[in-house]
């Protein structure tokens, strides 16, 4: 028999975490597991902490509370650059429920928002206040270590952030892959680019070979060709019901090219 505990503060919930407890945010993944007999969960922990729902500027960028939903991201003026990402996560009901914090932990093929966070080099802010880069966070994600209070993202200059989700069912389909790119430009050339792929490995992954190949190029067919060639390098796609690993590798360059050339074809 399970129990549910509601804590006024996130810190309180974090302190109450035990071996067989699970934090529940929007619940889109946790309740699914519960409905299908999650025998490993004894206690569900909730928190009504208002800070979890906050979106605000601070020194290093914009701080997004872990409990902010996709619908709230879409509605936020500050987060307009992330609205195209949030808008393609699930259907309307899912977006009213799904949180940024939950997305950080969503397993393949989910985690589209986290792909964007990875490209933006976000910081993960834990309940005890310590920070961790998104990349090390993802690398160590499988071992649960406390609760996340917020993420912090820099605000990219207009047009420098791009996102592209590939799905078979539109709207609403789950990712065959998603790609986020942060492409800082200087004098018409790409600076230090960051490219992240979702559904191309156990967690969102950076395409570092392609990032390196983008340095200093112009965003045209010739300029991006070397990056497109190495698009899938360093990625580790798997077979699933949506697509085979082979297919994902095969089409990754096509979709990266569309992202980089800002082709509006999906």
């Amino acid at each position: 028999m399970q129990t549910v505990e509601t804590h006024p503060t996130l810190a309180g919930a974090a302190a109450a975490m035990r071996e067989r407890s699970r934090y529940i945010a929007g619940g889109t993944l946790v309740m699914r597991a519960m409905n299908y007999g999650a025998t490993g969960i004894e206690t569900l922990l909730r928190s009504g902490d208002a800070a979890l729902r906050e979106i605000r500027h601070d020194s290093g960028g914009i701080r997004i509370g872990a409990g902010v939903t996709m619908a709230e991201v879409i509605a936020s003026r500050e987060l307009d650059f992330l609205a195209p990402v949030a808008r393609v996560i699930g259907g309307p009901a899912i977006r009213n429920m799904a949180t940024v914090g939950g997305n950080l932990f969503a397993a393949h093929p989910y985690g589209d928002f986290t792909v964007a966070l990875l490209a933006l080099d976000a910081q993960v802010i834990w309940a005890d206040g310590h920070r961790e880069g998104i990349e090390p966070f993802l690398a160590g994600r499988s071992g649960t270590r406390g609760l996340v209070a917020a993420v912090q993202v820099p605000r990219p200059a207009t047009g420098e952030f791009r996102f592209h989700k590939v799905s078979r069912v539109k709207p609403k389909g789950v990712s065959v892959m998603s790609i986020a790119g942060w492409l800082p430009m200087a004098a018409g050339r790409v600076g230090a680019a960051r490219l992240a792929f979702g559904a191309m490995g156990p967690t969102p992954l950076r395409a570092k070979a392609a990032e390196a190949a983008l340095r200093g190029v112009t965003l045209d067919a010739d300029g991006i060709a070397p990056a497109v060639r190495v698009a899938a390098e360093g990625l580790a796609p798997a077979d699933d019901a949506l697509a085979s690993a082979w297919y994902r590798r095969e089409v990754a360059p096509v979709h990266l090219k569309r992202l980089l050339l800002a082709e509006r074809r999906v």
Partner: protein
Amino acid sequence: MAKVPVRFTLNDAEVALFVDPGANLLDVLRRGAGDLTPKHGCGQGTCGACTVRIGGEVHLACLTLAEAAEGQRIETTGGLANGAELHPLQRAFMDGFAAQCGFCTAGMLMAAKTLLDRSPNPSRDEVAEAISGNLCRCTGYEPIIDAILTAAAQMQGRAVG
């Protein structure tokens, strides 16, 4: 087993129930509150047959922890008609053959109502987007989209005079 109390309003009526900890809202609405209009199609959030409105926004009852409904305003298709008078959406679904087996209909209507509350004059694309979380396997989406647009036009007509 240790049940926990939950209170909410369901279609404007006060409901107070004891629920199993960890139960989902769909089970509680159907078996506890006796509102059988939301349907169980998948228990995974994929089909949308259990779509209800919480605080005026669409939610999936099967993925909502029953305790999270505490103090909320919940609406279902069971409360859509005004007594014997059908909501224009219900009429339009009837007239436009927008339901065949009827299993997805209650969820579709909740998604459609939420759209029209916010956007009384939606485009076809907006309608498709609004019902994108609701699967239909028999009617096909076209008659459903047509019906929602028809209802929107009728409601506008009435509002304008």
